[in-house]
């Protein structure tokens, strides 16, 4: 009986540690970061070392640009592959590609960054927002493909069968019926991939490099919020550390917004149930 009580207490301690860690991280980010946030911070450029009023304007623009570009590149491939895995699972291509996709998902993001560095950066002879976007896109593809496949697999088989029985062509069945039913899952997968890409730092270190100014094209080094957090956190100036916290808070806010949208999307679809 005593052992039972002790173990119950230890289990509660474990849960407490996990929850406290989360709360501490979020609270510290808010406490340290909030004093730094103002309109200037959000739109200024960092500028030279001596300038006091630094901002993350270029980083916000850079993150949005690169993540947006990465999404444009990865959604067609990810969704396309996911639909293929789900609707034609008997195909050998489907099996091989699905397995490859799982392997791709487990690639350390740093290695993907180095891959893009070796191919794009060295051949273009410059760090660029484009390289950063490509690296992010490669990271996003497996996430989107997996969630797409799983969302479509949940659609009841009877829906497809009923559609074919009524004479609807296969392609219309897949696009108009199956994908339409699974669209909440699809959207969730894409949003989760976007959230992941927005927070990635390692691959951007060696592709986009970061920039203290607004990049004029995607062929230049580009700033990104997580890069800013890293650079300023490891800097020797205490005041730059508080800028890092401020940027971290902005990043957390973006993550939170994305996760909220995900929950709204899911909630909206829980009410539309297939009756079969």
């Amino acid at each position, binding site marked *: 009986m005593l052992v039972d009580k002790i173990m119950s207490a230890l289990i509660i301690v474990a849960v407490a540690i*996990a929850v406290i*860690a989360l709360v501490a991280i979020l609270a510290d980010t808010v406490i340290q970061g909030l004093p730094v946030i103002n309109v200037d911070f959000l739109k200024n450029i960092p500028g030279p070392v001596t300038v006091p009023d630094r901002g993350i304007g270029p980083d916000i623009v850079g993150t949005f640009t690169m993540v947006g570009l990465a999404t444009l590149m990865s959604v067609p491939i990810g969704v396309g592959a996911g639909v293929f895995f789900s609707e034609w699972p008997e195909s050998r291509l489907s099996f091989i590609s699905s397995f490859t996709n799982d392997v791709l998902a487990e690639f350390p993001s740093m290695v993907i960054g180095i891959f893009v560095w070796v191919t794009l950066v060295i051949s273009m002879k410059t760090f660029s927002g484009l390289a950063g976007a490509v690296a992010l896109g490669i990271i996003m593809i497996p996430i989107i493909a997996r969630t797409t496949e799983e969302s479509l697999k949940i659609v009841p088989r009877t829906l497809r069968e009923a559609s074919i029985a009524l004479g609807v062509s296969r392609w219309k069945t897949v696009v108009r019926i199956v994908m339409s039913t699974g669209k909440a899952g699809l959207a969730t997968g894409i949003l989760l991939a976007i959230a992941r890409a927005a927070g990635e730092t390692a691959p951007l270190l060696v592709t986009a490099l970061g920039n203290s100014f607004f990049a004029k094209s995607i062929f230049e080094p580009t700033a990104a919020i997580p890069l800013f957090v890293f650079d300023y956190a490891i800097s020797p100036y205490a005041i730059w550390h508080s800028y890092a916290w401020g940027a971290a808070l902005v990043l957390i806010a973006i993550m939170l917004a994305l996760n909220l949208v995900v929950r709204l999307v899911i909630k909206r679809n829980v009410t539309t149930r297939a009756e079969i």
Partner: protein
Amino acid sequence: MRRRLGGDSFLRVTLAAAAVAILILMLALAGVLISKSTLSISKFGISFLWGSIWNANTEIFGALPFIFGTMYTSALALLFGLPISLGVAIFITEKAHNFPRIGNLIGTLVELLAAVPSVIYGLWALFVLSPFVKNYIEIPLHNSLGFIPLFAGTPFGLDFLNAGLILAIMIIPTVSAITRDILNAVPNSQREAMYAIGATHWEVIWKSVLPYARSGIFGATILGLGRAVGETMAVTMVVGNQIKISPSLFSGGYTLASLLANQVFEASGKLFISSIIEICLVLFLLAFVINVIARFLIWRMTKGVHFRG
């Protein structure tokens, strides 16, 4: 009635193209990793894996300090992270089983841990966790037990211990989520049988649920290990970045991933770059093998099981 099948094959071909694109991407990745590291492989051979010198000037490269660092920090991550993850999973599936709202709340909070970007973990570890651990844990331990190699060396806060601790927190969401599924897959009959012979709740957990779920939990642990091995940013910010092999918790170190993050810019000269790529290959193979083992263990436990409500 003959239907035109043009639309069907068009869709299938288009979607197949996307699947092929993934294959091409993988081939490109593997191809570049292998071809660019052949220079380094031919120069150092297999002894690259146990070479302990990494010197850009003399152009001698060896991966041992980094493999050691990765293994050490990942082992610490499992040591601290596994009990907590297990505790969380047991809490949600066993203790809070009759209180689903509490279970869901804790589950959601732990999942939120997974949404925090790695660089923010690093930021927090650098400015909050590391000073705390240094002042309240490392320095007292060093002062009292500093003769033990484990606690030798003046603690500066940026060391294996702190890297292991932040990694432990980072793997909690993964390991606990999978362990939850594993524990839910244990048939109720196991628990009922134990209760029938008068076991306490903990005896039920310890003597029948956990042993039944053993290989699945092992698989979840290995998956967490895979995460820890590939983690770059948070580790880079607190591991100290010293090329050293030392058993001390308070020693600065280097992992495979943080080597890649730090040294890419110093990389000049074909051999240096080739060695960097070979490190990528080592890291990828490590992560790959770990994940394959993990998936197999988890699959073996959960195939064909009806999940408990």
